[in-house]
């Protein structure tokens, strides 16, 4: 599969953005890339397995706190790695329990996980430092954050493509279609789900670790914002969960649209955004991606 080569010019252009444009452009694209990375990380596990996770908030926040704690002690790339590992470790541990539940029980528990993580960190911070928030001294430049998030978005896309093509993706699709049936064909469902959930969490954690550098002050309520988890799911619903392009298109449209609406209609942009989302989910249940033709004919008799 050499078709990623045709994307090289776009990737090069995105990487050159900090040198070619202004800070506003970089900031806008950074938000855009953050949603791309989060949406692709979400869809790599929840797309094929159909386990609707609201834990993105938890992983993002855990990653952000890794940066808050490690900034100044560790180099920037190691902070991202730390955020990824902390989130993946949390996912593997919590997954042992929540991945045994199905359907809405799983969704509700992953939402609970985000709340739980918020309060655990809140209490820890209170008992250690006596305060809730943290001031980030010497945060990285916006350009460094931008390049890190660009790299994470590309890595998430590559990882998702690799995952879906291989046996783990196959097993996740089997689990999504009929979990007990997949087990009668030799799949150990819990192990497969743990691997997929932890891999997805690693990307969300790394994105959180990178984005934390954007704030000069963070507290648990900022980084464990439930909207992050909901928006990620919505983006994939709007874009479509069956292909990676769906998550990417959804993220780009969502972030640009919300920025545009926020500038034009500062007082009721959230209402407009909500309406557009509802309409798109109602009239395009398989996402925007369903409007695009498939590259190769999927089936012939």
């Amino acid at each position, binding site marked *: 599969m050499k078709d990623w080569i045709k994307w090289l010019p776009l990737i090069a252009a995105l990487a050159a953005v900090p040198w070619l444009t202004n800070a506003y452009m970089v900031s806008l694209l950074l938000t855009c890339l953050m949603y791309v990375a989060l949406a692709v990380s979400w869809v790599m596990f929840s797309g094929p397995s159909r386990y609707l996770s609201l834990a993105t908030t938890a992983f993002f926040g855990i990653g952000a706190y890794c940066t808050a704690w490690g900034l100044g002690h560790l180099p920037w790339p190691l902070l991202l790695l730390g955020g990824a590992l902390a989130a993946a470790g949390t996912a593997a541990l919590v997954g042992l329990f929540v991945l045994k539940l199905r359907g809405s029980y799983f969704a509700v528990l992953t939402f609970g996980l985000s709340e739980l993580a918020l309060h655990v960190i809140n209490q820890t911070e209170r008992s250690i430092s006596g305060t809730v928030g943290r001031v980030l001294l010497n945060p990285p430049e916006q350009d460094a954050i931008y390049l890190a998030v660009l790299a994470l978005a590309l890595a998430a896309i590559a990882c998702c493509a690799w995952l879906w093509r*291989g*046996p783990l993706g*196959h*097993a996740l*699709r*089997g689990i999504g*279609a*009929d979990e*007990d*049936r*997949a*087990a*009668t*064909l*030799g*799949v*150990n*469902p819990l192990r497969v789900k743990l691997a997929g959930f932890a891999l997805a969490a690693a990307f969300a954690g790394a994105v959180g670790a990178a984005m934390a550098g954007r704030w000069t002050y963070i507290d648990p309520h900022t980084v464990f914002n439930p909207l992050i988890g909901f928006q990620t799911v919505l983006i994939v619903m709007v874009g479509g969960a069956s292909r990676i392009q769906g998550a990417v298109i959804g993220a780009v449209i969502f972030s640009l649209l919300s920025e545009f609406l926020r500038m034009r209609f500062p007082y009721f942009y959230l209402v407009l955004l909500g309406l557009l989302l509802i309409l798109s989910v109602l009239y395009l249940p398989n996402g925007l991606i369903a409007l695009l033709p498939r590259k190769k004919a*999927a*089936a*012939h*008799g």
Partner: protein
Amino acid sequence: MRFGGLAALTDVNFGIGPGELIGVIGPNGAGKTTLLNAMTGVVAPTGGKVTVGDEDFSRQPAYVFARRGIARTFQTPRVFPEMSLHDNAAFGALFAGGDLLHGGHAHRAAREALDYVGLAGEERQLAGALPPARRRLLEIAMALTTRPCLLLLDEVAAGLSPLEVEQMGELINRIRTEKNISIVWIEHAVATLMRHAERMLVLHHGELIADGATAAVRADPRVIEAYLGETA
């Protein structure tokens, strides 16, 4: 095996030898499907023991049964509708047939199995588009790629035309003789079943009321009364 107050299977004891083709009959609700569920880890038995070789498998999950070489079909076929026939058939090869590390092997196993059951040339079609009769064939192909030593079939001939029932019987017999796989075959098409199976089990209200050579079971007065009726 009990479900709450209902005793679905009581005191059912039998063994399966290599290369045997065993037919299972009994009225609806007799516990035939429950028996297969207990023999594949789909439902853990509430009492009694399931052994494979010398090992106790009573508490093992379904995937362990599958990897140990016990494959099955379902009374209502359970294929993966949004996957191609090829991917459905490759599934078991990957996760139970030991082809995980050799993607090419799973591909070959899937093609061979689809070919074997008569679904060659339809590899790229989605399983969801398949008519029910052909879904049963696909399920057999899915089972074969797990490289089973024991294949459990739950009413694979139900809803087929008389000609198709005959072809199904031939296929099952071929699997037994050519691949030397033991088979337990639940079916209501008694005539076809008895032609191919050398041994019959008869379940009635969760009890094993007969287990023996087909000719002997056919003549057993209890079996005639419970299931076969006067016409047999």
